[in-house]
Every structure is written in C-alpha cells, then in structure tokens.
C-alpha cells in the first residue's frame, strides 16, 4: 500500500523522504523554499497583514504584500476567513478596500474556472497584438528557463521563482509579458512553466493571468518599459542586459512598433 510517512524528526528528514519518494519532482527542480507549509505559518502571516499599508505599497517589490498565496491556494486559509481577518484589522471597511479587491480577483478567477473547466488552457479570445496564435512558439526558450538571457530582471526573477516558489505580482506580470510579447511564446508554455515552480500554482489564477497579459482575456496586451520597471523594482533590478542595452528601453510607441510590427 503506497502510504507515505507523516511524522518526521526534522524538516530535513521530511525533505529527504519526499526527495526519495518523488525523484521526478526533484529532477524538475531540487530547491526547497524557506516558506513553510502549515496552518501555524499561515496564521503568523495573517497576523502581520496590514491592509492600509498594503493599499499604499502593494505594487512595489518591497511593499507590504501578504505572501498568503500558497496558503490560500491550498486552503490552509479560506478566502472568506482571510477577508474577515482583513476587515477585523480596520475601523472602516473602506480602509481594507484594496486587499479585499485583490482577494476578489482570486474569487473571480475561480468562478471563471468553474464555468469553463479544462478550457482554461484554450485562448479565451484572439490575441490583440496583430499576431495570430500560430505566430507564437510552442516551447519555452532555454535561455529563459536557464536564467541565461543576460538581462538582470529576467534572470534574477527566474532564479527567485526556482528558489522560493514565489514572485511578486509585478515580477509575474513583467516576466510573463517578456515571455509572450518579447520572445513571442504562446502563453500556455509560460503558464505550464510557472505552474511547476510556484508554491501557489493554480490553473485558475495562473492561466487566466497569463491570458490577461497575453491579451486573450483582456482588451489589450500588457507591456511595460524600463522606466516603469525601475519605478516598482526598488533598485533590485535595472532591466539592463549584459553589455548595457535593454529590450525594455524606449517609449511605449517605440516598443510596440518593435514587438507588434503588424498591429
């Protein structure tokens, strides 16, 4: 009977057991995150949530984001429970507006998934990039998955994804946009790649966010430029590539002309 152990002497003991049981998962990536699973860790994070600070700073890489996503994804915390906790921390519900609004994105994506099921892997709508689905590559480029593009933002974010299983929303949007729009890869390839590494990997939020970036689930593609990247990255990434250039340099019109030549 394929029963797994459930009592461990230490974290190392647990990790060793799972590494032995699932060599195929260790072959995908052998990193283990510092983020601990379990209700205790989730409650400690929930205690620290500051809805007001969150509303002010969430778009910054160093902002007061909650990091609750792996716990919400696995039901360690309920969505309603988390909303209740957020409301309990403020004297007026409007002061938790942004956090409840972001939690609602999760609720929304789950409702869409309930409606469409496995079609979450299909383009919801055509691309609005002037390109057809056939113009996009089926597979992830090796230099991206190996973190060897030479761009500090791309390579740094890919390494962080592998090592921690978490990326800030700004990094997710920008990395996805780089993959789909700059490298012209089908969003499905990027979504599958994220799913295998994210601790919060979830076909609802993940696939539909990739589609939102790609423009198959929005009115227009999400793109950014280097100025915008630097605004949110708090000095951690410049967007420069080795040798000094940057694929993200320029005004939006110039970038669009480069990456969407037929639009």
């Amino acid at each position, binding site marked *: 009977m394929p029963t797994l152990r*459930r009592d461990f002497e230490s974290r190392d003991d647990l990790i060793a057991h799972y590494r032995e049981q699932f060599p195929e*998962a260790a072959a995908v990536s052998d990193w*283990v*995150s510092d983020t601990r699973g*379990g209700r205790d860790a989730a409650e400690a994070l929930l205690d620290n949530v500051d809805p007001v600070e969150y509303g002010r700073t969430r778009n910054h890489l160093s902002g007061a984001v909650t990091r609750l996503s792996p716990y919400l994804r696995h039901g360690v915390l309920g969505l*309603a429970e988390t909303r209740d906790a957020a409301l*309990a921390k403020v004297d007026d519900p409007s002061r938790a507006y942004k956090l409840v609004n972001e939690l609602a994105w999760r609720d929304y994506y789950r*409702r869409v998934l309930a409606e469409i099921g496995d079609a979450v892997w299909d383009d919801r709508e055509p691309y609005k990039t002037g390109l057809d689905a056939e113009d996009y590559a089926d597979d992830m480029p090796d230099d991206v998955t190996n973190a060897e593009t030479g761009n500090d933002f791309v390579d740094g974010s890919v390494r962080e994804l592998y090592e921690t299983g978490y990326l800030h929303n700004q990094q997710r949007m920008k990395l996805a946009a780089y993959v789909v729009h700059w490298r012209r890869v089908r969003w499905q390839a990027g979504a599958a790649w994220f799913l295998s590494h994210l601790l919060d990997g979830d076909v609802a939020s993940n696939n539909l966010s990739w589609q939102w970036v790609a423009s198959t689930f929005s009115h227009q593609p999400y793109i950014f430029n280097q100025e915008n990247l630097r605004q949110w990255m708090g000095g951690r990434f410049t967007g420069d590539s080795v040798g000094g250039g940057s694929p993200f340099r320029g005004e939006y019109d110039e970038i669009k002309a480069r990456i969407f030549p037929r639009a």
Partner: protein
Amino acid sequence: MNENARDKAVIWVHDEMLSLSWLGYVRRAAERTEIVGAVFVFDDTWVADERLSLKRLVFMAECLEQMPGVEVRRGDVVQEVSAFAEAHGTTRIVSLASTSPRLRRQGEQLGVDWVCEPPFVELPARIDLKRFSRYWGKAKSRVFRTTEEIMEQA
C-alpha cells in the same frame, strides 16, 4: 434510531483544503454522519502532468504534518480513496467542493458528497464573468461584510 443506522463516511482531503479546520467544518456539515477516517493522496498523474517541483510537494507535506489523523498516500486518487473508504467499512466519501476540473472529475468518479466553503460573496446566479470589472460591479456592494453578516442575510 440505533447507532448502526447512522451513516459512516470518510473525508477525502484534497490539495485545496490543507488545514485541520476543514475537517471540523466538513464533519459539522455532514451531520448525522459518523466520520471514520480522513485520507490525502499525492496524485501521481497530477505531479507528472504539471511537472510539480520538489518544493511544492514539501510545502503540502508540511501542511499535512499539522493535520494529525489524516493518512497520507500517493498514487491514483480514485483508487486510493476508494480503497481507504472500503477498509473503513463504507463507500460514502465527503469532501470540500472545488472549482478545479481535476478535483471535480475525481470527485465525480468517487461519488463524493461535496460540502461548500463559506461564501466569499453571495452573487446572483449566472452573472456575467467576461471581465473582472463586470463581476466587481456586482460584488463590491456585498463583499465588504464578514462571513457572519453574509450568512445572516442569506
């Protein structure tokens, strides 16, 4: 009614309910049913299909570590959960409802009785989900309430 007439059931713990509190929640919802066991199965097909990396499995294992009493298995979910139920003298399986097509399919094959989680927001049936803005237009006047307030109005 004698004790034997009371239904027996096992809880299928899946990857969207990795907290002990759901076990109590499902138990309370499935009133008149005696819960005789709970099992989680690492789904070999899912691990292979989504190419899950080690850190994800470790995260889930750590969640399960804080859920004493839940048996942890690996393999084919439908086969393992059925076998677990049978070994506990029942065919009845209860679990927390999910929107995941994978979990729904497995639940259907197992004949699961689903228990719904507390609502994040109560919305009219068949609302337009084409864009978030349409959903939010309906949700925003109802979502800034506690679960207790939402339940009272339901």
